[in-house]
């Protein structure tokens, strides 16, 4: 079943100070099946975040349209949960209140809110931190809270914009496992933007490679590694083969992007 359709979406940023307009995203088509975990992989500045923001409704496409469950996306909404690279927990709310933010907006009864929050606190391993302020949490814990906050809203699709980009390598690996574990249980449709090849292969069932500016889709690689995935998967020959292939795809783009400057 098709969940999301990106139909000829492009984005041109207007010229600044007499310069040429920036073509951030060439007309792009992508169809995402329900319950799929898709990683969008590309060098920085390839328009992958722009694409995700357009799906989220936080940015408008210059041309084309985005359809979620066959309804056109007109603006941001609770049906598309988003996790940002920057830490976006509301600093004046506790961990529990942050997770309940969307539920409160919808007017979910307090008792039910509490039950949902408790469930997600457990799932992201934050038991005992319900009353903490975001400031008191490590980066990894903040992003776990942000994932719980988006999931608690029960969105149709999860949009993750380099959510682990600011974390150290070890924390990052743990977060990938956590995210994968949650997905293996719920199979919620996910669009995951990253520039980390290993991360993309490990979590996704399909990797979309994007070219350097102007961004467009260069390759669409199915990752047929079995679930549930364990971190030891990263050392298997199949994994290495995929990594080698994607590294080649990406390298050409990075070389080109670097040559432009």
């Amino acid at each position: 079943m098709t969940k999301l359709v990106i139909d000829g979406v492009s984005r041109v940023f207007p010229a600044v100070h007499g310069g040429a307009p920036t073509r951030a995203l060439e007309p792009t088509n992508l169809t995402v099946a329900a319950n799929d975990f898709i990683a969008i992989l590309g060098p920085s500045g390839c328009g992958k975040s722009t694409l995700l923001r357009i799906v989220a409704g936080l940015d408008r496409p210059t041309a084309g349209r985005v359809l979620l469950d066959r309804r056109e996306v007109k603006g941001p909404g609770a049906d598309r949960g988003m996790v940002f690279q920057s830490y976006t927990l509301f600093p004046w709310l506790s961990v529990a209140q942050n997770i309940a933010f969307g539920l409160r907006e919808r007017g979910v009864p307090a008792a039910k809110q509490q039950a949902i929050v408790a469930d997600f606190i457990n799932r992201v391993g934050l038991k005992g931190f319900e009353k903490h302020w975001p400031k008191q949490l490590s980066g990894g814990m903040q992003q776990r809270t942000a994932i719980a906050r988006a999931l608690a809203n029960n969105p149709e699709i999860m949009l993750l914009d380099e959510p682990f980009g600011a974390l150290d390598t070890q924390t990052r690996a743990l977060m990938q496992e956590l995210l994968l574990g949650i997905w293996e249980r719920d199979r919620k449709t996910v669009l995951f933007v990253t520039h980390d090849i290993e991360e993309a292969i490990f979590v996704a069932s399909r990797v979309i490679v994007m070219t350097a500016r102007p961004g467009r889709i260069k390759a669409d690689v199915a990752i047929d590694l079995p679930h549930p995935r364990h971190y030891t998967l990263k050392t298997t020959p199949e994994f290495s083969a995929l990594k080698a292939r994607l590294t080649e795809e990406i390298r050409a783009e990075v070389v080109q992007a670097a040559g432009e400057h």
Partner: protein
Amino acid sequence: MPRPLEPVGRASRIALGIAFFVVFVAVWAVATLGGFVSKTFLADPLTMVADGWTLLTRFGFAYDIAVTVWRVVGGFVLAALVAVPVGILMGAYKPVEAFLEPFVSFARYLPASAFVPLLILWAGIGETQKLLVIFIGSVFQIVLMVAVSVGQTRRDLVEAAYTLGCGDRSVVSRVLIPSSAPDIAEILRLVLGWAWTYVIVAELIGSSSGIGHMIIDSQALLATGQMIFGIIVIGLIGLISDFLFKAGNRALFPWRMA
């Protein structure tokens, strides 16, 4: 010598803070009691305390203090009630800002003290005039500073709220306002300090009560001890209100301190 930016302990912070008051009074005492400055121009600390005691016990100065505090708080609360909502609207909605910002920026440079003669014409020399001086002096400052603070709300927090299902009004009430609330409290603390200067100016002209009135009366009698006592009382009240504001902010916004 301490190193740059190295924090100082709580005990030594308090000791240092008190030490300067001691130095200040000591210099003052030496200058006046030592006969370096004429008594006509500057009373010594002992005379000041004695004069202050007389003021409080025989001339009902406590009533003047109460009147002045009432005027400041009254005018300031009125200004805040008008200015905070307007400032939030300006910060949140750019057309409102475009409409009001140029005028408010102009109006805030109009000195409140220059309005005193005009306000006496309009409102007489009663309480309304005193409140209006403080209101005019405070309202534009608060509007502008609140608007800036609300306008600086982190965009990523606003975007996060939208993706969690917030509409425009929810974004204002659940993101813009709570995120700038501590700044707004800090702005109010700052402007309250300025309101104190306006009230004294208002009381210097056409007033029959209040700290400013007492100071101008004492001038006619060359009672510098009383004048200084009045000024010190203003300083002390400022210190107390500042302390209360800070304590209130700590209680209201624990997430800022965490």
